[in-house]
């Protein structure tokens, strides 16, 4: 049953991508991708529920479905569905109808590679899946073929490839460290590494973990390795920005989390955590500085992603059941919320014909349906109640205090307040600017507004009320990961 579901989840985007390449028609590609994303979203939710029974292995232990992986699958599936709905309306405006089949083929392929990375049970194959996500998404980032998008695509592939080659070195060192315990040839599954970890040489384990952290941290967009992120997020088409931010970053974060449990088992967890916390605070700081003085609307969202990845890194870095549960919850919240924000930014950008925040004004009056939604999203993403992000950030702050990271908790709280003010100040300008300006209504299609509703509604619900099943799931996730902590 579970195996069949995983297979369906992989085959749906694979078949959609292959058919797009063969048929090469925009309309069909659109429908195929939408259908695939619907299948992925439904199976992803089901798999998340099924994953509560503990880890399950398939195909000679190459594939795993565990709580952590399933959570990333859930985020990816939901964002993929939302972005697919959105791109039906959005991509028709881009004016590349002849090449639209390429877009959808790559889009489905991109979703497939992220899902693959989440179920890989072998550290080497996980690395390859992450590398593949880069290769596929590079061409999505450069899809619009302007000088800016090609520049962004080039920076993206060079920086990320160089970064994750460090992760490969770290992976190799972990294998080497394990080979002292398990013999020269063994399958580098996560649990094999965890089992070997207590007897690993601590110096080698630290070196390996730091390499992996910097490597996958580049892909996650943790400062100071975030340089590619604002460019790629701001220059790609809006649905791809949402996928990059809401799905891809989580996929790479998963690697860090998995290696963190290995570092914990190797009794070098405290140093590993401190490093992760330091990267988290640095990301928040960079995010805050660039958000306050930002001029591009999508770059604003991109730096907000840097900030939120920092928050998630802090959650995992603090650790403990609270930190882990908060970080995972924040992952889902951020995925949904940031998708809605990028959709709104894309809509406004297309309607106003500019990427500059200064050129956007009077959104409140000119977009009576989308305007309030986007503003609600902005309030949510800065961590204001009653949305889910308030809750998850609060949980992470509490975890920081409980686990003795007072300085990081204080820095996090202060920077979140700075970001709250800076971020919403931009929205004040865009919504309630000078009154005599152009008041023509912004045209936004229903395809482009519907996914914003779909993303924000669960955020509001989860901010106010938690079903008991979800609560139980989080307790299970936190204990599964926290169980191997010192």
């Amino acid at each position: 049953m579970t195996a069949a579901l995983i297979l369906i989840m992989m085959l749906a985007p694979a078949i959609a991508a292959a058919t797009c390449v063969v048929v090469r028609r925009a309309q069909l590609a659109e429908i195929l991708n939408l259908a695939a994303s619907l299948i992925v979203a439904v199976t992803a939710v089901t798999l998340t529920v099924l994953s509560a029974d503990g880890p399950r292995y398939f195909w000679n232990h190459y594939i795993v479905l565990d709580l952590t992986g399933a959570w990333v699958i859930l985020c990816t599936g939901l964002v993929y569905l939302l972005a697919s709905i959105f791109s039906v309306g959005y991509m028709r405006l881009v004016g590349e109808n002849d090449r639209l089949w390429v877009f959808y083929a790559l889009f489905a392929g991109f979703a497939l590679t992220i899902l693959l990375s989440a179920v890989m049970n072998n550290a080497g194959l996980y690395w390859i899946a992450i590398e593949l996500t880069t290769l596929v998404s590079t061409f999505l980032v450069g899809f619009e073929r302007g000088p800016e998008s090609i520049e962004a695509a080039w920076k993206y592939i060079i920086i990320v490839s160089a970064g994750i080659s460090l992760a490969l070195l770290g992976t190799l060192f972990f294998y080497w460290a394990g080979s002292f315990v398990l013999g020269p040839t063994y399958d580098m599954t996560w649990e094999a590494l965890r089992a070997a970890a207590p007897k690993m040489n601590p110096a080698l384990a630290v070196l390996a973990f730091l390499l992996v952290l910097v490597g996958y941290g580049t892909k996650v967009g943790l400062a100071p390795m975030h340089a590619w992120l604002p460019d790629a997020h701001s220059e790609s088409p809006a649905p791809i920005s949402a996928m990059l931010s809401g799905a891809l970053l989580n996929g790479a974060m998963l690697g860090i989390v998995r290696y963190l449990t290995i570092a914990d088992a190797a009794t070098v967890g405290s140093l590993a955590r401190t490093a992760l916390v330091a990267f988290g605070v640095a990301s928040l700081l960079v995010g805050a500085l660039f958000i306050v003085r930002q001029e591009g609307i999508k770059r604003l969202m991109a730096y907000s992603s840097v900030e939120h990845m920092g928050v998630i890194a802090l959650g995992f870095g603090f650790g403990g059941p609270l930190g882990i549960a908060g970080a995972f919850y924040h992952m889902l919240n951020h995925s949904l919320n940031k998708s809605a924000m990028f959709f709104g930014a894309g809509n406004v950008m297309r309607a106003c014909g500019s990427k500059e925040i200064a050129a956007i004004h009077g959104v409140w009056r000119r977009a009576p349906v989308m305007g309030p939604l986007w503003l609600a999203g902005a309030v949510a993403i800065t961590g204001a109640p009653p949305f889910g992000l308030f809750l998850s950030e609060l949980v992470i702050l509490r975890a920081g205090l409980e686990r003795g990271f007072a300085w990081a908790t204080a820095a996090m709280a202060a920077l979140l307040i700075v970001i709250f003010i800076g971020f919403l100040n931009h929205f004040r300008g865009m919504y309630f600017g000078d009154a005599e300006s152009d008041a023509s209504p912004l045209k936004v299609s229903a395809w482009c507004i519907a996914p914003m509703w779909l993303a924000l509604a669960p955020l509001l619900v989860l901010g106010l009320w938690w079903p008991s099943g979800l609560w139980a799931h989080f307790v299970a996730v936190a204990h599964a990961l926290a169980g191997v902590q010192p």
Partner: protein
Amino acid sequence: MLVTSLTPFAASIISLLAIVSLMLAFVMLGSRWLNNYLYAIAAESWVIAALSAAVGVVGHYPELYVIAALTALFRGVVLPWLIWRIIRRLNVAREIHEILQPSSALVAGALCVIFSLTVAYHVGQSLGLAGTVAVLALTVMLSMKLIGFLMLAVRHEALSQILGLLVLENGIFLGAQILVPGMPMLIEIVILFDLLIVVACFGMLVQYLVAHVGSTSSLDLKRLVG
């Protein structure tokens, strides 16, 4: 553990091959002609193939012969050919505005090697492997990593950057052959293929750079800031 059970002769052959590939990385650092980079990377790949075969012989790992053959074929022939095609299309023969003179780059490279040696020495000591090939392998691996990053940082032609990434990869691959020769073959083969796809993607992107940005120098990529 292979590295502790080598005969002096085997150890010196492996050391020699590792050092030759490090030297070839320096050839790239000291030149400003793209063709030289290409020859150096091709030669380095052949040296690594020879190293795989040598480790296969002394460590009795027959699957390493397959890896050696594939390395020679893919890294030594197909990859250089792909890159040669890109160079031919580009009309760029050399680095024009060096950020760092080749001579200064060589000195910087030497500093990288010294740093790597220090790290490798300490790791080797804590593992009880001081004085074995492992320390040399670690040194070469880390220095090639740093030299690759140095190339990425101080060279700005698109092709130099691709080749810088290949130096990074070569370093890891070389270290893997010596330190963990028993690594499952599947992984190594997938990584080899992965590299081909990477370079193919780079090739396509370079063409876009020419067509849409009008330059292959990263110094001209300055539209996106802040």
